[in-house]
Structure formats: structure tokens, C-alpha cells
């Protein structure tokens, strides 16, 4: 079986997996980082979103063989103490209900704000439309992104 060196949250991990294995399952089953969630497996729900070289990416359809040399950041590595402005805003607004999709929401939102630190409502709604929340916490997510944007300023 091939071996891959992955840089996840600043740390180097060597994993021995089949070349077609999605990053999602490498993270969850092999590196024990389970914050990145499985929802659909076909890049439709966003629960598995991570940052690859700063870009919000669906880890469920990103195979491990493409990731040598990439900087991968997961929810566990978004901030040192869970205090990234987006995480702080999520806490302030008390966004989660079941909480399962929220790591993916936070990863999408943080990458979005990186590129557009001062978004309007319609930009937020459009940027977040690919992340499903089955509990429908959408109003709170929208509000939390506005709060996060004001924290970043």
C-alpha cells in the first residue's frame, strides 16, 4: 500500500492508505481527527469541509494522493484555543442545535471571510448555500457570520 506524508494542522503525518482514499476518511480513521464530518460523500452537504492551502474544500471527494505538500487545516487546527473569530461568534450566537454540520459551516465561513471580510447579507447567503444544516440553524449561522466579520475588523 502506498505511503503519504500529509501536513495537517501544522503537523506531519505519515499514512499508509490506498491512493483513492478520500482525505475525510484519512483524517477520521487514520489520524484520529474526527471533527471533520461525513454527511453525503459526494460534496453536496459541506459537513466535511476543510481548508487546503487556505481554500475551503470538500474532503469527502478529495483523494489523498493529490495532497502531498499541501497545507491542510481542519476544525481542530483552525485556532489554538477555539477562539478564531468565527468560533467565537458561533459561541456568542449559540448557533448549534445537533451540532453535526457546524465544523463544516465554520470552515466554510472562515475561508469565506478570509476572502471577503466585509460581506453583505446576500453574499453570506450565497457563500453558505452549499453547506446543509438539517436542524435549519441558518438564521443563526447568518447572524454569526456578521458578528464574526465585525470581530475581524
Amino acid at each position, binding site marked *: *500500500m502506498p505511503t503519504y506524508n500529509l501536513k495537517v494542522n501544522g503537523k506531519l503525518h505519515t499514512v499508509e*492508505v*490506498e491512493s483513492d*482514499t*478520500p482525505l475525510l*476518511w484519512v483524517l*477520521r*480513521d*487514520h489520524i*484520529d*481527527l*474526527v*471533527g*471533520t*464530518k*461525513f*454527511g*453525503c*460523500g*459526494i460534496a*453536496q*452537504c459541506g*459537513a466535511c469541509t476543510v481548508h487546503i492551502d487556505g481554500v475551503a474544500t470538500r474532503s469527502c471527494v478529495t483523494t489523498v494522493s493529490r495532497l502531498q505538500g499541501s497545507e491542510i487545516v*481542519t*476544525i*481542530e487546527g*483552525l485556532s489554538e484555543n*477555539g477562539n478564531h473569530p468565527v*468560533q467565537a461568534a*458561533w*459561541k456568542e450566537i*449559540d448557533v*448549534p*442545535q*445537533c*451540532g*453535526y*454540520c*457546524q*465544523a463544516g459551516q*465554520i470552515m466554510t465561513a472562515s475561508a469565506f471571510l478570509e476572502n471577503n471580510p466585509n460581506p453583505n447579507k446576500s453574499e*453570506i*447567503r*450565497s457563500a*453558505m*448555500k*452549499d*453547506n*446543509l*444544516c*438539517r*436542524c*435549519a*440553524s*441558518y*438564521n*443563526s*449561522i*447568518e447572524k454569526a457570520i456578521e458578528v464574526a466579520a465585525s470581530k475581524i475588523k
Partner: protein
Amino acid sequence: MKKSNQIQFSRRAFIRTSALASGGMLIGFNLFTACKDDVVPPKELIDLSQLNYNDFNAYIKISPEGKVTIFSPNPEIGQGVKTSMPMLVAEELDIPWEDVYVQQAPLDTKNFKRQMAGGSRSISLAWEPLRQTGATAKQMLINAAATKWGVDATDCSAKQGLITNKVSGETLGYGDVVNEAATLEVPEKVTLKDPKDFNIIGQGKNNVDIDEIITGKPLFGLDYKEEGMVYACVLRPPAFGQELESFDDSAARTIEGVIDVVTIGEKVRELLKKEDLHWSVNIGSSDKVVVIANSTWSAFKGKKAIKAIWKNTSPLESSEYHSQELAKVIDSGDFNTLREDGDVKQAFSNADNILERTYESTFLPHNCLEPMNFFANVTDDKIHLVGPIQTPEGSADTVSKLLDRNKEDIYLEMTRMGGGFGRRLYGDFVYEAAEISDAIRKPVKVISSREDDMTTGIYRPPTKYKFSASIKDNKVTGYHLKEACINGNSWPQMSNFFPAGAIENYKYDIAQVNSNITAGAWRAPITNFLASAEQSFFDELAEELKIDRIQLHKDLLQNVKGTTDERIQYSPERLEGVIDLAVDKSNWGKTPEDIYQGFAVYYCHNTHVAEVADIKMENGYPVVKKVTVAVDCGVVVNPLGAQNQVVGGVIDGLGHMMYGELTFKDGVPQSSNFNSYQLIRMNQTPYVDVHFVKSDIAPTGLGEPTLPPVGAAVANAIYAATGQRLYKQPFMKYFKPEALKA
């Protein structure tokens, strides 16, 4: 005023205390029953598995440092009870919220009492006993301090974890007297706080798991791992009505990481002969092929590589067939009458006019974002089960029968759940995990793919309603509701919801259509569509009578006030209260020209709700801009959590009414993942404006009741905008297909 569904609560002692060997006090209590005289909580808290949830279904530990830990095995599915229930204890114990720590405790399966999340009942059942427990502990701490000071307990008061000697002004922390308090008698009677003195209840408190959620800590069933654990994927029949005939696993076995391929099903089949479990076993009793692997990905790949041959064992049904059967039954079927008042036949034959309308819904999958999964480790000594389940005790009980093992051997731990919506009331995946681990004698995690989850579900069944109203002298004199539903029906109490009691001649009939497609509870069972149909009908009825739709409801509610009919579930006064609040807050009838409004009011799950939807037509499509919600759920324990539940319920209901549909062709579900099944997304979401009726009445649940009315509020708004009445779910089918793409 009539109180709906008053919770009966025994005042006999339900609390026992003991002194912990390590210092501090352990209070065991039972939320639902009195404790037996001879039971006491353990003296030492060595390990959570030693807490006995037979005699006590929750525990509170007060440490010598004054910190409070609440051990509760109550499952959390996102409805917030893990936050709101401890708030009740902390309020009466009178401690700073920051000093409270909540730990999800495992379930001891020895003759356990009811522990489940479902029916929005957790908070109403817990309201009185949890506060009594907190107040009792506080009184014991006060008594201990009074003894220390040599003063009367009435000369002491306690607040925010500090006891004050009112004579000398001295103070003691709870931790300073907790060892002494633990040895005292449990007081017979304690006084609960006046609601106006609440300082935790009614204050917004963050979800207690918030830090773990936002940093991605392991919390959910899918996150659970054990040393030596293997992964399993289950191949089930692709169509309802099929069973496994044979399979070839040679390709699967060559896949890297695949350890074994086994079949299961025999044990469930045997159990089905003895027990009525059909409702909790999805896709029948076929044998299933299980791929065991050392990673999830290998198990998924292995499952795809199995070549199976399936045989038809019962008719393969399609959606057209379901629709025809429902229509047949509604028009000619035999009905069971749940309630009949007066003489409906007479009222209809004397009528000047009769309004008759039918409404039809579709199958819906639950689509919990965390797919079904469970961990099992079956050994000769014990059965360890871990995962997300709304009915731990029932599932553990079934596993004991399935594997013919003693209940005492089973140790079930509940994890946080990535959504429930009714799906996790059914333990099919628990039985599968147990049967697999029993077969391979290894710790195993069974995981469904999204496709497995959506296509082998236990679905919300399609229902058809026919509403008829007789009108005489421009008054509603009779009302007849007929329900035809696949593998399910209204519960008897639903026939006592509005407009029962409000219309003299009233009849509620139900009939069932049988199908081999498994159907079951889905968030707000039955009412999730019944409310939409009924409140759309009332909108049309008001139009027929040329009466304002709000006024029609108010007139009918007048007839129920002061009723002596004990069966009536709702309060006309509380319904009127939410109507007035919704009308006021929504600027009903005073919106800009391009905004169209629709109204609906509904009582279910002990909670009264009115909703107004504001829509705008954009490029020929209805866009819901805002939904105003007025809720009477009694005391609002945690406004932050309550707001989340209300908003979530409304948007969930809206999304499913607009887009939700699972069709079948020859027994095969025609959607299998989120590319072929539309869930509502943020860019389609209205702003939900929530208003609670101020109340001192005991709280009722919020997980479900705001979902049912939204469909009608939206349908009625769409009618106001377009003149088009909507009789079928999903509503977007009435508009151009491009609208579905969004």
C-alpha cells in the same frame, strides 16, 4: 381554564442522598416515580457505569469545592435538554450556572425506566421533579449550616452557592457544609421559588457542548472508537419487497482492507416471529450482506464490490400505486371513528352548502446529517453498545432478546446525535451492530452511507385527507375529517385537537393503507402534514363564508371556552393568545403591496402556535421572506435554546413542504443522496421572527410544535399572491421546474 395534558406528579419521596467517601454529597433522584425505601445512591463515584439508573434516573454530585455535576442519561438530539434540564436544578439549588457541569451518563440497562427523547416531552416531565431536587439539596445544605451555627434553619438563607446566617451575617459556601448535609434526613417538604425570582430559568444559556462542537471534539456516534475496532457496511435489498437470494463476494474480498464478508438477518427474522417489531426493522427481514474492513473507506468499497441477486417476495410498489390506494380508501374505505359529536350526517343533509377538499403528502426520509451508525462489542461476559439512539432502553431490551442474553449483560452508552427527527426512535441499526459483533466477535462500528440511509429508511408516510364542512345560514354546522395513511394513522388524542369541541357536529375518521415500505415517526408525527392540510382548508372555509380568517378561528374558539369536555387537548384562550400575538407582530394586513401574507394556527405536542408567512413573487416563484411565530409553551426555560428550536422547526417544516418528496418506482426509492433530494439551504431561508407568550404555566416542549403550521401559512400566502390553492406536497411542483434547482 382547562389545562391541557397536565402532567401527573407524585409527591412521594423521589430523592435519596448519600455521603461520598471522597467527600461531598450524591443525590439520586427519579424523574418519573417515587424511590423505593431501601435504595441509596453509591457512596463512591468510581466509575460512571456504577451509577444505577434503575432506582434513580439522574444524579447530582456536590463536591467539597461547591461544584455541581449532574449525571443524566437523557439523550440529546439537538433539542437542548442537556442544557435546559440542568438549568432547572441549578435554579432551585441556587448556584452560579458556571459552577454546573453536565455529564452524559451511560444507561444501566437493568429494568430501566423510561429514558427517551421524543414527543417533545422531556422538559414538561422534568419541570417539577428537577426543581424539587434542586430545592431539596439547597434546604439540606441550609440545615447543615444552621446546625453548625447553632441557629434555626429559618434564620439562614442561601443564594448563589453561599449560605448566610441572617443573625450574625456569617457566610458558608455549599462546599463547606456538604459533607454534613449528606448525612441529614431528606426534608419532607420544600418550597419552590416564585417564578419572578428565577435568575437562571428564563435567561439564555449556551448549549453545554458548545466548546466541543466548535472545536471538533469527538461527541457523536460516528466519532466513537475503540482499540481493535473494525468497520462494517451493510448491503440491504435495493427495493422494498425484495430479499437476498445469493451473492458473490469474491471481488469484495480482494479489496485492500476488507477483512471478512458475513451475512446477518437470521436472528432478526427469528425475533420477528415472536415480537411485533416490524415497525423498527427497516426493509423487512431479508438476509443482509456485511462487509467487515479495517477502515470505513475499505468497507464502503467492499460493499460496492458485492454482486448480489435479489428475489421479489412481495409486490414492488410505485408512487402512483400509493396515490391510487389512498384515493380508493378515502372514497370508499372502512374507517375507524376516533371521535364523533352530534349528528354529522344530519348536519350535512341540512346544509345550504358543503365545502369539500382533499390534500395529499409524500414519503419523506429523515436525512439526519449524521448517517445511522452504531458500535457494538459482543463478548461472552457483556454486550457493549455505544451510539446515537433516541430509545436506548427499548433497543437494549430488543438486543437482549435478539442475542438471547440477559439484560444485565448489556451496557449501553448514548452519544450526542447528529439529528434525530424520529429516525433514531427505531433501533434497527443497533440490532444490526449487535448481530454483526455477535457473528464476528469483534468490536465493530456499523456505518451507513448516505445512500443506505436515504434508501433503506423508516419514512414519514404519505397521507391523504378529505375535509368536509357543512354550512347553514353562513355558519359551520358540521365537520368531517377522513384520513387515509400508509402504515400509520392519527393518534386518538389528535381527534381532540381544534376544531373538536368548536363545531357541534364533528367526526374524525381514520383508515390505513398497507404497504411493504417501512414508515414511522418523523418530526411532529401526523401533525407535520395534518396541520398544513387543516389550516389550508380553514383558509378556504373562511373565504367561502366571506369571513375574515382570523375572525373565523376566534368565533369557533368562543364555542370551546368553559367546556366541560375533558378530552379537549387545547386551550381556546391560549390559542387566542397566540393568534393575537402573531397578528400584532406580523403587521397582519398592513404590509407593502408586493408582500402577501398567509396565516395558520395550531396546537400539538402541548404547545400553542400561530404563524404568519410573508411571501413575495420573484420571477414567477414564491419566495418566503419572513415567518412570524407566536408561541405559548408556558415558561421559556432557556430562551436561546428555545429560539433555536422554534426557528429550526419553522425552516425545517417550510423546506419539506416546499421541496420534500421521496418517490418510489418498483419498490426503489428514487432519491438517494442530496443531489437528487432537495433540503432547504441558506439562500432559500426566510427570516423567522419569534415571539413567546409571557407565562408562568409549566413549560411544554418545543422540538416539534412550530413545524406543523408553517406549510399552511405559506400555502395561504401563495394563494393570496397567485390565486392558486395548493393541495399537494411539495409545493414547488406547482411552479416551473426551474424553481427546483435553486
